[in-house]
């Protein structure tokens, strides 16, 4: 695997749209070609080399390419967008849309990310060591196709609207989240190890949400079913199962109505 290191030397005045920072575009390119790749600062088209010092060459394919992003990237969006393979390591904290529509490979953020991290994600592994913003693993505005596959792990806290319109895959938030978890969810798994204030599983059709901590206000559309012994992300213990959102339509499979499942740790 070849490693390309890009180091922020000249931070943008406006926000930089850097969706070309991806193993798929870096693959097969020399450092100079990578520096010439386009980016947008505001409405002006510019190049990555204007902001980043690039060292190392891309591998033959995306899978053979590892990207290390150093320096202050707090004004850089779309890192790892649509990546299908390879690795990206971001040493600090990027702005929005990190790993958006990611399809494969590994993306590690050592700092925190802003909103829309991993939206519409289809596959791969996305790890945030710090916190993240709103709309983690959610759908793009207006879309009904949220996260569909892959795994997202946030070691810190998340904002609101985690897993909005989620259809598949797994989101694990080791800290707390803000309101709205799994709204309009139709599949996949969300594990919140901390607390959630309210609006958990609103208009949820299918899928599974685990909450280890407290839920201040439970949605009225959830009904207690039973207590169950479960193993969830390395923890074994007793959970209360709720079915919901009862105000939403639910499909029937093998004669049984399928509900969204909300498990709360006892």
């Amino acid at each position, binding site marked *: 695997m070849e490693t390309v290191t890009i180091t922020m030397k000249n931070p943008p005045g406006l926000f930089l749209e850097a969706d070309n920072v991806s193993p798929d575009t870096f693959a097969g390119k020399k450092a100079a070609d990578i520096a010439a790749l386009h980016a947008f600062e505001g*409405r002006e*088209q510019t190049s990555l080399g204007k902001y980043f010092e690039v060292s190392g060459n891309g591998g033959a394919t995306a899978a053979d390419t590892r990207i290390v992003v150093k320096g202050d990237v707090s004004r850089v969006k779309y890192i790892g967008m649509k990546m299908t393979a390879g690795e990206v390591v971001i040493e600090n904290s990027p702005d929005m849309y990190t790993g958006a529509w990611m399809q494969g490979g590994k993306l590690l953020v050592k700092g925190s990310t802003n909103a829309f991290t991993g939206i519409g994600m289809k596959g791969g592994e996305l790890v945030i060591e710090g916190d993240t913003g709103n709309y983690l693993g959610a*759908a*793009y*505005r*207006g*879309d*009904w196709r949220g996260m569909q596959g892959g795994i997202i792990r946030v070691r810190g806290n998340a904002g609101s609207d985690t897993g909005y319109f989620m259809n598949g895959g797994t989101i694990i938030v080791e800290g707390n989240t803000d309101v709205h978890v799994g709204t309009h969810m139709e599949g996949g798994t969300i594990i919140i190890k901390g607390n959630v204030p309210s609006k958990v599983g609103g208009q949820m059709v299918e899928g599974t949400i685990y909450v280890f901590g407290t839920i201040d206000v439970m949605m009225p559309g959830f009904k207690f079913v039973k207590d169950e012994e479960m193993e969830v992300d390395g923890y074994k213990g007793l959970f209360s199962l709720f079915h919901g959102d009862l105000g939403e*339509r639910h499909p029937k499979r093998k004669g049984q109505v399928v509900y969204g499942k909300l498990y709360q740790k006892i």
Partner: protein
Amino acid sequence: MTEYLIKNGFVFDPVQGIKGDKADVAVKDGRIVTGVSSGAKVIDAAGKTVMAGAVEIHAHIAGPKVNEGRNYRPEDKLFTYTPKSRQSRMAGGFSIPTTFKTGYEYARMGYTTAMEAAMPPLYARHVHEEMRDTPIIDEGAYPVFGNNWFVMEYLKNGEIENAAAYIAWLLRASKGYAIKVVNPGGTEAWSWGLNCLTVNDPVPYFDITPAEIMTGLMQANEFLGLPHSMHVHQNSLGNPGNYTVTLDSLKLAEKIKPNNKFGRDTVLHSTHLQFHSYGGDNWGNFESKSKEVMDYVNRQKNITIDTGCVTLDETTTMTADGPFEHHLTELNHLKWANIDVELETGSGVVPYVYSPDIKVCEIQWAIGLEIALLTKDHMRTFITTDHPNAGPFIRYPRIIKWLMSAEARKERIDSFKHSAKMIDATLIAGMDREISLYELAQMTRAGPAKALGLANLYGGLAPGMDGDVVVYNFNPEKDHKPDEIEKAFSAAAFVLKRGTPVVVDGEIVSNGNKRTLWVDAKTDENPQVMRDIRDKFLRYYSINMNNYEVAGHFLTNPMAIEVDATR
């Protein structure tokens, strides 16, 4: 003004009966002429196809429901934007493009005129504001009449002359072009939570049937002598087994005779026939009835149709057929917008994904193409996608590919997930018919222009007609792979719009000189109708009558088509 000579192209012009002869086309002062001076700009069209500008007879491209689609579908814009260039503005959107993109994309494909197919009269100003912002193409809009309280009341009492006077007033007030009918009676029934699924289902309260509404509107249309015929989206759209309702509706034209000064010899235009040619009684035994419907259309010479071809894309459905959109959202569970337009109509919007992996979508794809391929008179069948309902209009080149190449259809059928089941439910696999360029010119130019009563201006290359000329990189003497057909019709080599080059090598070079078409029908003074209008505004409308009319400044280069219906 600059003169142009488009030299040595293979010309296809149904108006003059030219079937691919090598000929020159001369344009001066915005019109086709017999010859130009030696100073004329020469466009070398050798080895290329030359046709008149194409005419879109039915698309939803301007107004409140289109804009609601844009508004509530930001995801339709994702990754579609192109930055501004020297001659064009920033443009984006896929199934519901911005107004600018609408004008640019039609022009790039060689379309120079397009009709907005459903204008809610109360929101006519919004429709005209968007048309004003749509560059290049000439446009007009059809106000909807099929669920209008005035119309239903006059027709219930058999008052054709009063209905006609009201229609003339509304065309003038809304700056509309033709009588559009959407799910006659059914949209009004929807405000009572009901629908009209046959031509004989009575409309609640008004106690009139869809058959009576359609017949009365055809009579009023011919009483006025409007340029276009009544233009109808029939009842029971999209339902298995609806082809019998379609035939019942089409048969209503048998009793009506055309009366107009525009050379139009038809009295009913049946739109997006694909959605109305379904057999079976559920989605399991859903099948094509294109043959049954087209056998009738081919025989009954006073009707025109458009296809409503399914393009197999993710799109945004939108129609004044409010109950249908509710039905659709119950089927696909995607977001739904709905509005009731006071005394006039209603509307709904729902996104839809026509997937090549879903049997029903595959069958719908086949039916749209079958309708075109079963056509005997190509001056009466027009290619549409009912944009954006069966797919975006930017897919016309792909539909042309499927119609011109049996090989292209076979490739598509072979890669369907349920091709065997699709073949059982349709005729498409057994059809080897390929549409010729002359037939294509009939279906996209001369035919729709004639049906719209605009045969003197559009759809042909005869001297005196508008200087709308298109050159395609397509040599009819050579064999083409299917994708080369699509490519050639996607981006014209040269488009002249009323004497102004608007597209060169597939790129926009000018915002053109668009016009807005509307119909000004003069009728005898009718104090009763004027009293009824004032009365309904006072009692029911949410706005004052003085704020209703679309004033002239809403229209870009207005062109009124005048009709004298005084007796």
